[in-house]
């Protein structure tokens, strides 16, 4: 092939080719890192929650009628609400819980294995009733679910305790301890117990209150401000108050969201008008939570596209000038018997060499930039496969950008060589 002449001619125009080398190198570095960031964002967005996200509706009732200040009234209203919601056709399950997935937070507490004297571990904590797991679509892998009687009796007991002045001993802890049965996520169980066998064991919190693990669910993921996304403890309790209102999750039969949603507010206000009702589909909450990542993906994709466009432009420019400058040489070569294909091949090879030099430097730059960004973003290290894809992409773009101006060069007539000598 024509490596010799190509390299010699490039040596005479170091700057011009050098510029393209730099441009290709920078482009590879940026494209590879952008693709890496897109990959991170998409992986984060694609993480499953473990719930039936598509068919869950959050319903929040915020009372303002003064009657709601009375405990008995609140209880009756809660029972009525659940009854009314269950009666809506297309509703699969209804639960009274303050847990709301995908809102980027929730409530948390610290616990440790009972009697372990170990470090207190932070975990998410939410009230649940007997239908919560069914409503979320969570699968119980060990133990049992809460029973309705248990939720009712625990609710009563907890309320008595919080309303009483819990007398405290010398250690600052209440003398009367509460003991409750709870359901935890498997990830939390694995964190607490090295052998992962958590069923039947007990935990304690700072007050010395005890929590016996009676059930384990297999997958739970709710992004939190602290790194406790997969650790959760559900305790049996109906939760409602005048200030905080009451919160429900509805799971509808697949595809029934559109027909169920418009009926919910009407049904609840018909049952009791002294309040406001707020509805949100879980998919909306999730979309909002992920909107920043989604925007990032869009912007980075646009940057990649523009960058490839600009770089191709540079390569087109280079080839156009290189062809214009060599019109006479091309004519001479053609007159001496070179085929059009030879001329085309010359330019393509020349460009391929320049691009490849750029890519070699670009791989180093890409890793360098990755290290700089990783320390800032706690992102992931770049995958080698990604760099290879970037290299292939730039080869294709480089050859494509050379092809059209080079074809024009190849079309130069041999007669041109004889003119103006």
């Amino acid at each position, binding site marked *: 092939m024509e490596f010799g002449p190509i390299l010699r001619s490039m040596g005479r125009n170091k700057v011009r080719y050098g510029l393209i080398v730099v441009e290709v190198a920078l482009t590879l570095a*940026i494209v590879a890192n952008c693709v890496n960031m897109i990959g991170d964002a998409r992986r984060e967005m694609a993480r499953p929650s473990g719930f039936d996200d598509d068919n869950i509706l959050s319903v929040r009732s915020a009372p303002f009628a003064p009657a709601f200040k009375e405990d008995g009234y609140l209880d009756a209203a809660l029972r009525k609400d659940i009854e009314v919601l269950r009666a809506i056709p297309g509703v699969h399950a209804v639960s009274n819980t303050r847990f709301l997935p995908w809102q980027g937070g929730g409530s948390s507490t610290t616990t440790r294995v009972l009697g372990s004297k170990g470090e207190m571990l932070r975990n998410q904590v939410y009230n649940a009733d007997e239908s919560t797991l069914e409503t979320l679509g969570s699968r119980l892998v060990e133990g049992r679910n809460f029973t309705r009687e248990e939720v009712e009796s625990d609710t009563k007991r907890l309320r008595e*305790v919080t309303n009483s002045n819990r007398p405290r001993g010398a250690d600052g*802890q209440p003398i009367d301890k509460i003991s409750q049965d709870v359901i935890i996520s498997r990830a939390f169980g694995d964190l607490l117990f090295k052998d992962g066998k958590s069923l039947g064991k007990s935990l304690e919190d700072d*007050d010395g209150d005890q929590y016996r693990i009676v059930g384990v669910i297999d997958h739970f993921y709710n992004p939190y401000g602290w790194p406790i996304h997969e650790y959760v403890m559900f305790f049996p309790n109906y939760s409602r108050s005048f200030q905080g209102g009451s919160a429900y999750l509805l799971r509808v039969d697949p595809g029934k969201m559109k027909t169920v949603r418009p009926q919910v507010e009407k049904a609840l206000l018909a049952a009791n008008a002294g309040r406001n009702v707020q509805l949100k589909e879980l998919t909306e909450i999730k979309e909002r939570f992920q909107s920043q990542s989604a925007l990032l993906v869009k912007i980075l994709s646009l940057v990649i596209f523009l960058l490839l466009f*600009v*770089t191709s*432009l540079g390569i087109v*420019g280079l080839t156009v000038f290189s062809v214009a400058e060599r019109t006479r040489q091309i004519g001479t070569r053609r007159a001496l018997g070179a085929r059009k294909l030879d001329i085309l091949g010359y330019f393509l090879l020349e460009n391929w060499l320049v691009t490849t030099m750029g890519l070699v430097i670009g791989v180093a730059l890409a890793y360098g930039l990755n290290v700089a960004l990783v320390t800032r973003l706690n992102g992931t290290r770049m995958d080698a496969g990604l760099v290879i894809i970037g290299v292939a992409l730039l080869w294709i773009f480089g050859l494509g950008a050379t092809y059209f101006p080079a074809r024009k060069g190849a079309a130069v007539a041999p007669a041109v060589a004889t003119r103006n000598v």
Partner: protein
Amino acid sequence: MLLHNLRIAWKSLRRNITLSILIVSGIALGIAVSTTFAAFRHAFSKDPIPQKSDVLRYVRLDSWDPLKPYPGDDPTRPPTQITFRDMQGIMKSTIPLRQSGMFVSNMYVYPDPKVGRPFRELTRLCFSDFFPMFDVPFRYGSGWDRKADAGPDPVVVLSSEMNQKLFGGKNSVGRTVRLADRDFRVVGVLAGWRPNVRFYDLTQNQIATPENIYIPFNFLRPMQIRTNGNTDGWGTSGAPGFEGFLQSETCWVQFWAELPNEKSAAAYRDFLTAYVLEQKKMGRFQRPLNNRLSTVSEMMADAGVVPKQATAMLIVSLLFLAVCAVNLVGLLLGKFLARGGEVGVRRALGASRADIFLQHIVECELIAVLGGLVGILLSLGALAGMNAWLKTTMARGDFFKLDLSMILLSVGLSLAAGFIAGVYPAWRTCRLAPAMHLKV
């Protein structure tokens, strides 16, 4: 002379319109991308209250669990908020020119039935100093006075949006608003207070607009108002009921002090130290002394207001501009060197190398400025798109702006890119030997 250079540059651009459009659009893309990301980051990082950012201090005290530090990225940081007890304790100090504890609650507003059903609204409970301390602008009336804090008197300040909603935008000072179970008298209506970041409370929704309703803090107890903000607790739960919550070690109050000079800041620091040492004697504050008196910008850095991605994207966008500049070098080099004949004639007629160099640099800058202008327009479009996106998620459509500093930055970037890209081609062109190009 410069005008003459510009005229020639313009003519040269017009000679090959397609090429010129390509060159200008290349640089315009670079400027558009870098300006957009600079403005994106700037929207978060901009000082929200520049006239006072040196004198405002956010107070943090480490009353957290003796056994382990407050959770978060940095274990040396005290809790983000303070306890109600400590707020009461440190408010006894007379050193700050102004000071206020504060929190946000979700309260029911009962409008005139003709206006609509009752609705819940985020309401800030604060002291009278809040308004002058943060230079809050008023359209009608003013904030309340310290006497109303002590009462507490049932007074309320509304945002202009809330005034629009409840009173159709008329001067409502003296009118009544029912919040939860009480009537409050309107004393002031804000005049569109919209800092880019809600700097006075960075614990939640940092870029949301300020709350629409403000009432005196001391209604906390009589109305038993619960916070809607973060409550960070540790250890035992404390006594039951509302009073038990107030007396607990739960951190949920934000606290700001205005300290007009370094002397008062030092005195206040000493006061806080003495306060904590006093509390230690009573068995509280078992962790090492760790009081923080942070400026607005320190607080914004601690709270991570600027998204990490924003900085990464800015770096990427500047590299993008670098690619565009390199690209420009190549294109200009081709364009200029093809002009040997013209340069030869000018040199032969007496133009010096410096004249030729200047001529070509001017042409590069003209290209860069044109590209910059197009880039700024493109970036305005991009920011409008991002605002529309933010409006759907945050109900705020004015967050991303191209203010004067950003426009200057992008003009500066264009000029720099034009110069950097132009130096080498211009230098090469002015070194062309005239004789070579005069032969025919």
